[in-house]
């Protein structure tokens, strides 16, 4: 009886999780703009500086990008044009991702800036700061 309850409970739990997946990402933690500003401070986006690829100088500009939703609604291709070649990976090649801090070493907290496209893969739907490290595989 306990086993059946466990299996049914698990089914409902997974069912619930699956519904949640539709709106969020599997195993993804995002930082709120206010938190990011507290952590890194804030400087206006300088596209030329961002494009140079210096990971020491990108975090505070990333705060500006998410805080002001600078690219939301704009073409994805414009992001690539203005910020340079994406140099990180999040979930799919259709999501542009940029490293915003130097690699701190294995299993240490690291964040990157991700541009999530709309359904047609044309315009930016959301821009978020995503935690890149240290998740656990559930299966």
């Amino acid at each position, binding site marked *: 009886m306990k086993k059946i309850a*466990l*299996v049914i409970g*698990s*089914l409902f739990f*997974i*069912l619930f999780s*699956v*519904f949640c*997946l*539709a709106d969020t*990402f*599997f*195993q993804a933690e995002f930082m709120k703009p206010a938190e990011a500003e507290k952590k890194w401070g804030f400087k206006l986006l300088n596209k030329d500086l961002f494009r140079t690829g210096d990971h020491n100088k990108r975090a505070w500009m990333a705060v500006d990008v998410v805080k002001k939703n600078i690219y939301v609604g704009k073409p*994805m*291709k414009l992001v*690539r044009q203005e910020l340079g*070649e*994406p*140099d*990180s*990976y999040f*979930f*799919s*090649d*259709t*999501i*542009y*991702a940029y*490293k915003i801090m130097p*690699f701190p*070493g*294995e*299993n240490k907290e690291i964040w990157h800036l991700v541009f*999530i*496209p*709309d*359904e*047609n*893969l044309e315009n930016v*739907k*959301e821009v978020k700061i995503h935690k890149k*490290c240290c998740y656990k*595989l*559930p*299966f």
Partner: protein
Amino acid sequence: MKMSSPLMVIIIYAVFFIFSFSAHCTQPDADCINWFKAGKVKLGKDCELDCAILSTDMGTFICPDQCELLCKPKMSKSILGKIIYYPGLTPAERKLIEKSPEDALTAFIQKTRAEWSSNRNFPEQGLNDEADAFRHFIWAGLLTKELGPEKAKEFLNAHEANPLQLDSEREMDQFNNNIGGSSAQMLISNKKWSIENLEKSALDSLRSKNLRVLNPGLKIPEVPK
């Protein structure tokens, strides 16, 4: 609560099966779909009214009761097809998910495994680097094992139908997918299949420069981590 991985996978499949199946309960009757089409009713504001006054016969007398369903805009074929829509899917991937939701789930699970494997071996992973090549190799290998070479290719090609990608990036991914798929087939036919062996094979291919890498520079581990 400790749950073993195989049990977890079985439960996930069970839930997705239920979701895929439950969609059929809300589909209109096939005869009614034909009746509706023959009536040339247009979807829109007056659809239900126009549908309800269509003439019926012995085979279609139940159809006016299904006008609400018939007038709904065409939805995904299954609930699963809808709920596993993620942002960032290519149009080709969306079509595939609708067509084969169960296989799409397998593809999703194997993609997560490949990302995990890549992250473990290349913690500094980025784009177009060794980690990227490794991830594509592993995903293609796992998909080939789980779905067979033909279906695996269908999912991999759908993923590469990405308008936001440069041609050079697409070529790199497709090249590494092909090598990953072939390596998996070789491991299977030699009865040496294991994820560890697939990872070994990916690292060997990277070291011997048999994989395409646009932005090299990451350190390649000697053995899988």
